[in-house]
């Protein structure tokens, strides 16, 4: 009798959803709810601009929020999109090789006493707030580029349209350099985790055949980790496109499409950061800034989604968790 009462109570306890678990489920639902809420709010706020400009918004170079004749504003996102693409490409060209080098150094080369300190230093670089990067960029990097780097580039490679025009230090090149500095810690930490996830057997097989360290990396580690390295590049790209403060402080903020990397330009986030508080009741203008935000959200969302899926796929192949 006693025993069946215990059993009944135990069964009831097992069936009953703990009150506490409801908290957990609600909290887990918050994450998809926030995502949907963000998407809804930003689409809703950009409807006026989508109605007014349609697809032309993406290909027009006009940026006339308040026309002199009092007519409707004419706004196009192409200069901002162009600036975002160019600065991101510069950043990736500089940051990808360096990140790979840092990752290889930390995962393969560094003696074990140096591993923890070297990771610590790169983590510190990642922890510096972006507005401090911006201040450093504005008051140190911009004069440095103006006085040393840009004149050198101009005299050496001035025949290319990329390095023409007068330079005051503000521009796409400086923005690309500061973005590179900012994404190196992120990219290299993902690449390091990915390289560390390559199974020992892959390396040992290579070493047993008499390969040098470099041959081991080239013929077995990098091919195995390729998906993850691509994922690292995609994730770093997503981060570079959305970086706001540091870029806003060094790019010069001019709506212009020019091949010269020395000239001031703008990016999608820098336009939002600069002009949002200057809208002053101009509904379509405000909506167009939200549409820029929507474009940015869509790009960053896709990049991060793709990068994460690639990482998951590699972690199945490697047979272990890769946490980045």
């Amino acid at each position, binding site marked *: 009798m006693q025993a069946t009462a215990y059993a009944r109570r135990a069964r009831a306890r097992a069936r009953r959803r703990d009150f506490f678990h409801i908290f957990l489920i609600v*909290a*887990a639902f918050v994450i998809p709810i926030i995502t949907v809420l963000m998407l809804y709010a930003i689409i809703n*706020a950009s409807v006026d601009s989508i109605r007014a400009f349609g697809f032309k918004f993406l290909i027009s170079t006009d940026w006339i929020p308040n026309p002199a004749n009092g007519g409707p504003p004419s706004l196009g996102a192409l200069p901002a999109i162009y600036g975002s693409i160019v600065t991101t490409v510069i950043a990736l060209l500089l940051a990808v090789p360096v990140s790979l080098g840092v990752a*290889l*150094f930390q995962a393969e080369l560094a003696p074990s006493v140096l591993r923890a300190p070297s990771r610590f*230093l790169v983590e510190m670089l990642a922890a510096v707030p972006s507005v401090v990067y911006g*201040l450093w960029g504005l008051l140190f990097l911009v004069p440095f580029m103006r006085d040393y780097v840009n004149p050198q580039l101009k005299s050496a490679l001035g025949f290319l349209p990329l390095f023409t025009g007068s330079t005051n230090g503000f521009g796409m090149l400086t923005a690309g350099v500061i973005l590179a500095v900012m994404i190196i810690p992120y990219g290299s930490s993902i690449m390091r985790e990915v390289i560390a996830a390559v199974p020992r057997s892959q390396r040992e097989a290579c070493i047993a055949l008499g390969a040098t360290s470099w041959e081991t990396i080239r013929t077995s580690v990098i091919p195995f980790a390729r998906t993850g390295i691509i994922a690292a590049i995609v994730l770093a790209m997503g981060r570079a496109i959305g970086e706001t403060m540091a870029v806003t402080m060094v790019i010069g903020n001019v709506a212009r499409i020019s091949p010269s990397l020395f000239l001031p330009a703008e990016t999608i986030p820098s336009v939002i950061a600069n002009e949002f508080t200057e809208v002053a009741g101009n509904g379509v203008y405000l909506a167009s800034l939200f549409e820029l935000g929507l474009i940015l*959200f869509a790009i960053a969302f896709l990049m991060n989604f793709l990068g994460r899926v690639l990482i998951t796929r590699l972690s199945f192949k490697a047979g272990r968790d890769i946490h980045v």
Partner: protein
Amino acid sequence: MFKLNQRRKISNTLYVVFATACFLVALIPLISILYQTITRGYIALSFDFFTEVTPPIGGIGGGILNALEGSFVVVALASLIGIPIGVFAGAYLAEFPGKFGYYVRLLAEVLSGVPSIVTGIVVYVLIVATTHRFSAISGGVALGFMMIPIVAISTHESLKLVSASIREGSLALGISRTNTLVHVLFSSARSGVITGIALAVARVMGETAPLLFTALGSQFLMTSLNDPAASLTLLIFDYGTAPYENAHVFAWGAALVLLLLVLGLNIIVRVASRLKVTGSE
């Protein structure tokens, strides 16, 4: 044969030199930022710097008291939102692994990569535009939104590290899942969870973009959470981009204080968690 070996040796040496050089090159900006911030920011520091409110841009004297207050208030509000929801969501991911959990985790990872300025304009629409005022609360909500996925992921990772035998042992003793989670899993994973929370706090403390259109910035001390709030990061942006030399000195001083707070928190947390790890071995 000899030549081939020579070439292999050279390529190997090149690889070692390249990778080491990359690491050293990556450190140059860190050294430069620390050097510039310390040498240029040091001049601004004084007793008044911490006890007075900011002067108008370009003005003389004053301090960063309102920015310190604003930063702490906004980050505290963000923590009130971000920590409980993040920790509970992370616990859900660890407790109920499954399809839904997998997608929530993926979504959290994707959300943590969404540019922070997007979070800023979304909270502008949701709160500032509906209440018709910039406020400390809206700034806290924006940073809180950013904290949720970060804390959820780090909590999930720390709980995953607790070995299955401890968990099953507790359940086998007839302890309910709730009590197992609270008293067994969280107490084993405590240092990991706290590390994750502290790093998330350090991360949002350095954010500027989500505050531009929510907390807005202010030259005064706050009287209510419905008022616009100053913050260290907004102050660095406003004073750094102003065309006055003394405003720049002010910005460097604020940057030094911010770096001390953010990097200090990072260093304490990492050293403490490392000691804990070696201590338990």
